[in-house]
C-alpha cells in the first residue's frame, strides 16, 4: 500500500486519513504536511487510521506533537479506527487520556 495522507474538511471539521505506514521514515514529511493542513480551517480534527498498516513510536510522537499544536489553538483532536496493536501502544502511551477515540469517522 502506498504511504500517504489525504484530508477533507467537512462542516468545519478536518479529517486526515493515513495510508500505509506511519513510521520513523515518514513522520518528518507528514508533520509539515499536517501543519499546513491545520492552517486551512480552525475547527476540530480527526486522525483516521483505518487504512494504516503500521504505526511505531515515532508515529505516536507525531500524534502527540500535533495534539499539542492544536491544543494551543483550543482545537480538539480525536483518533479513529486504530488496529488492535496500534490501539494497545496508544493506550500504553496514555494518548486516550488526552484524546477521544472513535470507531469510525462520522461526518
Amino acid at each position, binding site marked *: 500500500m502506498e504511504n500517504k495522507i489525504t484530508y477533507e474538511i467537512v462542516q468545519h471539521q478536518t479529517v486526515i486519513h493515513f495510508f500505509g*505506514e506511519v*513510521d*520513523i*521514515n515518514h*513522520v518528518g514529511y507528514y*508533520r509539515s504536511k499536517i501543519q499546513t493542513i491545520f492552517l486551512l480551517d480552525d475547527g476540530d480534527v480527526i486522525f483516521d487510521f483505518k487504512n494504516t498498516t*503500521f504505526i*511505531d*513510536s*515515532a508515529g*505516536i*510522537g*507525531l500524534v*502527540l*506533537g500535533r495534539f499539542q499544536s492544536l491544543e494551543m489553538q483550543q482545537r480538539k483532536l480525536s483518533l479513529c479506527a486504530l*488496529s*488492535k*496493536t*496500534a490501539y*494497545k*501502544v496508544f493506550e*500504553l*502511551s*496514555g494518548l486516550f487520556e488526552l484524546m477521544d477515540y472513535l470507531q469510525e469517522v462520522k461526518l
Partner: protein
Amino acid sequence: MKNEMDLSFTAKIENESFARTCVASFLTPLNPCIDDVVEIKTIIGEAVSNAIIHGYNNDGVSKVLLSVMIENQQTIKMIVQDFGKGIKNIEEAKKPMFTSKKELEHAGMGLTIIEALSDRLEIISTLDLGTKLIMVKSLQQYDETKHD
C-alpha cells in the same frame, strides 16, 4: 521446528522498515496470526530504530545485527545488537516518555512498547561499547476456526 536467521545492515533509518519486513517474512512458515505479526514488526521496528538513532546517531556506516530464532513452533527469540553509544541508565531509559533526543519529537515510548508487546525483554548495555536487546515472544496458537 528450529530455525535461525542473522542479518547485518547499515545504520540508516530506511533499513528499519527492511528489518521488520524481513522478520515478518522469516516467520511466515509458522502461519502466525495477523496480531502477532504486527506486534513482532512493532517490536523489531522499535529495537532497530533505537540501535540506529540512539546507538549510532544515524551515522549510515556502522552495522546493526539482528538475529531471530524460532525455538519451537510458538516461541520466537529476537536479538538486536549495536556497537554504539550504549545506554547510560537502563532503568531511566525504560521509563515511559523518557527520551534523550527531545528535539526529534519522539514519544520516548520505544522500550516501553517493546516490554509491553514481548513476553521477556533483557537489555545488556555498556557505555561506548553498545547495546544488546534480547526479546522473547510466544505466538498465539493459530486456530483457523477463530479466523473466519
